[in-house]
């Protein structure tokens, strides 16, 4: 182990500096300016030290700097735990470790820190570009580790060797990635800062809250249908149901985990599909109305909303079945129905008056009231727009009678209000509507701008019935997409615009790649692993036989790699190879060729020992001698030699 104390050479220092820069640079945007500058200063200092061959700073100074850095991080984040402060500390340690590169031991420690910080990058983002960048960092760091052992090769050679070794490590990575028994995290509590800013539906709805989402083209979830993709008008992705209204906001009041199985029956053909849900930090899972099954680790609320046991903080994938036609809630609980007609005491007198008229006219016939309401909405000539005017205290009245311009939440809220005022139980359902099929990979992509709100009314004998008041006024929003529904000229998210065909095409492709990445790389979790193994005929594998399979396969790869690595790339002279075949044949007859023996000498000896083959042996030896040692041997001679040897049967 004498080597570990070897001083770090200049070249090694450069390599480690390169590794550290490659590691820290992608992380820089995550840090406050002072930290980024401090790290840059430390790295520059190191560069100057190496360049000028100055002495390393004294240890007490480094200790002070470490303390200062830690204090800085603590002051910035009020903690040293958690993702960002943790990574920040590691960056500080790495930068300062570079300033005390004394022996090979420090060099190895630095390289290991670099490896560790690559993981730090993944805490923030795991996109394809990040992965590519991480590959580059890995390459440079590995080259630095190589240089720590042997700094003589040129940089290109060092990089080539690092690349070769990483390439050889790839099969192991693939095997381990697929087969290593996966554990669903977290293993311990995760500080909450990881999910601070994710866009998506919230558990309250007020005018403008969904319209805000319509400006975002972030992906909410992706869907892969098992069979045909249902028509656009059926794609209602049920989200948070909001039965409670305080005059301005609609709220979720669901009873979590009310049902372990669906309490209704389906009619018609079920639809099977698989959802890949982007993390949104909430509990609910989106499902096509109405969900017929429940994903694992989830339950159904009292208003038929599947919710997960844990907030969706990681990309989540679940398979689902939906009954597009289902009869739900025929025998709905009385308290629920009671809550579904509650309204604030006053406000919105005009719509209350109209509802009262419906009530008077149709009495308890809630179906008739519903029809009347739909009729009323279509006659009001409401306009669907992304830029509705601001509303005052009597929001519903102002929308229906004055401004007449609104987004889906206006429509849904007004409709539910009208029904409730007429005594019909109704509630607002938020979620997403529609989506876009990516022709490249066939996935239906639902984006934030597909967010929608609609109404659900309870009709005696039919249960809860979906009514989409937006569809009454702007049917193209439901049958087409957002761009078709809003008046021309309104600002739409870039990706929602339909006028740039090539851009759309490009987007489809990028999205398909990104989806494949999400599905197969980032979304490779215990569930997907089980599914994959099941599809390979390995049902319910436990960690023991998975480990066994893994070891066998890794062993096989290792053997293959060993064979490849140890292969004798000795290019044997063809004449010599033929000669060896010949001598091997004679060796089986007990006439062993000595490795130092010349062809003629051997032929004479062999001919004495096997006189009946003397002529053949003599001819072969003479041919071989001429081909191998003679001047300008002709190609024909080599062929003749090979033929003679092939025909030689002692």
């Amino acid at each position, binding site marked *: 182990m004498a080597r570990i104390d070897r001083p770090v050479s200049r070249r090694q220092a450069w390599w480690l500096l390169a590794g550290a820069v490659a590691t820290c640079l992608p992380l820089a945007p995550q840090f406050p300016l002072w930290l980024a500058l401090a790290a840059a200063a430390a790295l520059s200092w190191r560069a100057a030290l190496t360049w000028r061959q100055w002495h390393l700073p004294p240890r007490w100074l480094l200790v002070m700097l470490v303390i200062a850095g830690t204090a800085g991080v603590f002051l910035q984040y009020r903690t040293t735990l958690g993702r960002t402060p943790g990574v920040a500390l590691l960056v500080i340690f790495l930068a300062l470790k570079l300033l005390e590169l004394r022996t090979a031991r420090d060099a190895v420690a630095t390289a290991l820190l670099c490896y560790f910080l690559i993981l730090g990058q993944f805490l923030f983002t795991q996109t394809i570009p990040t992965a590519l960048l991480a590959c580059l960092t890995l390459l440079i760091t590995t080259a630095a580790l190589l240089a720590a052992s042997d700094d003589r090769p040129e940089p290109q050679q060092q990089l080539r060797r690092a690349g070769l070794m990483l390439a050889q490590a790839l099969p192991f990575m693939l095997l381990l990635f697929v087969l290593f028994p996966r554990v669903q995290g977290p293993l311990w509590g995760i500080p909450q800062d990881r999910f601070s800013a994710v866009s998506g539906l919230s558990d309250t709805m007020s005018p403008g809250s969904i319209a805000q989402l319509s400006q975002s083209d972030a992906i909410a979830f992706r869907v892969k249908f098992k069979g045909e993709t249902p028509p656009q008008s059926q794609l209602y992705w049920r989200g948070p149901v909001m039965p409670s209204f305080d005059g301005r906001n609609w709220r979720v009041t669901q009873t979590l985990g009310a049902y372990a199985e669906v309490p209704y029956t389906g009619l018609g053909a079920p639809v099977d599909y698989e959802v890949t849900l982007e993390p949104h930090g909430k509990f609910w899972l989106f499902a096509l109305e109405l969900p017929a099954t429940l994903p694992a680790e989830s339950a159904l609320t009292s208003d038929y909303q599947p919710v997960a046991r844990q907030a969706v903080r990681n990309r989540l994938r679940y398979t689902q079945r939906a009954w597009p036609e289902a009869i739900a809630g025929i025998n709905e609980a009385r308290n629920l129905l009671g809550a579904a007609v509650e309204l604030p005491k006053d406000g919105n007198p005009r719509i209350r008056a109209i509802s009262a008229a419906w009530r008077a006219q149709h009495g308890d016939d809630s179906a008739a009231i519903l029809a009347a309401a739909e009729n009323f909405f279509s006659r009001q000539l409401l306009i669907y727009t992304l830029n509705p005017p601001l509303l005052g205290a009597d929001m519903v009245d102002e929308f229906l009678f004055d401004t007449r311009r609104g987004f889906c939440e206006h429509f849904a809220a007004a409709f539910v209000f009208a029904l409730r005022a007429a005594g019909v139980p109704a509630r607002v359902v938020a979620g997403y509507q529609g989506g876009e099929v990516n022709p490249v990979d066939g996935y239906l992509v639902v984006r934030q701008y597909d967010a929608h709100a609609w109404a659900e009314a309870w009709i005696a004998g039919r249960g809860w019935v979906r009514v989409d008041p937006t569809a009454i006024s702007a049917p193209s929003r439901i049958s087409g997409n957002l761009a078709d529904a809003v008046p021309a000229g309104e600002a739409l998210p870039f990706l929602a615009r339909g006028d740039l065909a090539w851009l759309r095409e490009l987007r489809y492709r990028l999205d398909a790649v990104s989806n494949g990445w999400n599905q197969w790389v980032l979304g490779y979790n215990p569930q997907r692993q089980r599914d994959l193994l099941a599809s390979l005929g390995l049902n319910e594998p436990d960690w023991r036989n998975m480990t066994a399979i893994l070891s066998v396969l890794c062993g096989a790869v290792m053997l293959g790699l060993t064979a490849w690595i140890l292969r004798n790339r000795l290019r044997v*002279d063809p004449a010599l190879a033929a000669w060896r075949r010949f001598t091997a044949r004679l060796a089986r007859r007990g006439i062993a060729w000595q*490795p*130092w023996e*010349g062809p003629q000498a051997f032929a004479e000896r062999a001919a004495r020992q096997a006189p009946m083959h003397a002529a053949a042996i003599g001819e072969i030896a003479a041919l071989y001698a001429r081909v*191998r*040692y*003679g*001047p300008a041997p002709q190609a024909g001679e080599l062929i003749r030699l090979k033929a003679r040897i092939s025909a030689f049967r002692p």
Partner: protein
Amino acid sequence: MRLPELDAILADINRIILGKERPVRLSLACLLARGHLLIEDLPGVGKTTLAHVLARVLGLDFQRIQFTSDMLPADVLGVSIFDRDSGAFHFHPGPIFTQVVLADEINRATPKAQSALLEAMEERQVTTEGKTRALPEPFFVIATQNPTHQIGTFPLPESQLDRFLLKVELGYPDAAAERELLAGADRRQMVAALVPRIAPQQLLELQERVRAVHASPALIDYVQILAAHTRTAPHWQAGLSPRACLGLLAVARAWALLDGRDHVLPEDVQAVLPGIIGHRLRPMDDTARTDPHGVAAALIEAVPLP
């Protein structure tokens, strides 16, 4: 395609030197490779006769120098003698100015005399009193030395020995050969009756042909690793010099030509190896003076063909 003239030369020599085909062949190979020959053996086994016969059949002039301890370089090279009549110095060429020189008992002479001969051998010219005189072409030195350590001898240092391309040992003839020798005609008369088989010009051509014998890369590799082995193995005090390697290849070429081949085989190298290493490799273990053939065999068997 054996060369008839070479076969005839060998036959002639073997008619006189009986039962010594291998040393005879080696000696001829040495001359064909333009090298000088060292014969180490006891007196009376035919060293002088061999040198004489070689000179005769090759049609070359022959001189013998008996080396003694009081010999001076001038005794070998020649002296300028003052001619009183003309009042000028005249160079009287020494016995070295001939095509074949037999330097008998070379280790009896003092190092000064030895080096005079050896330098002339190497440079194929003689420089005395500031004047350089070329030696005849072809030019061979056949030196003999006594094998036993005797008082008053000056064993040639390794550096000088290296200038001899080959060292052969004649040894006592076997019984049959000795009987034939005793019963046969007088050797002296037989030598005198010999007629040259080739002209000196032909000999030069033969030497050219030797140089043209093909040594393939595989064979050169073999020579190289043989040499490398001698340099690194623990058995010898110093390995073969590059000059020795060149010599080895040259003699192997000559040996191949004597065998009628236009290319060298490993067998050729192995055949001439004892003559090459016998006077060059000094065993580490001085007490065990093994014969060159045993040493060569051990070397050959330690080095596989590439």
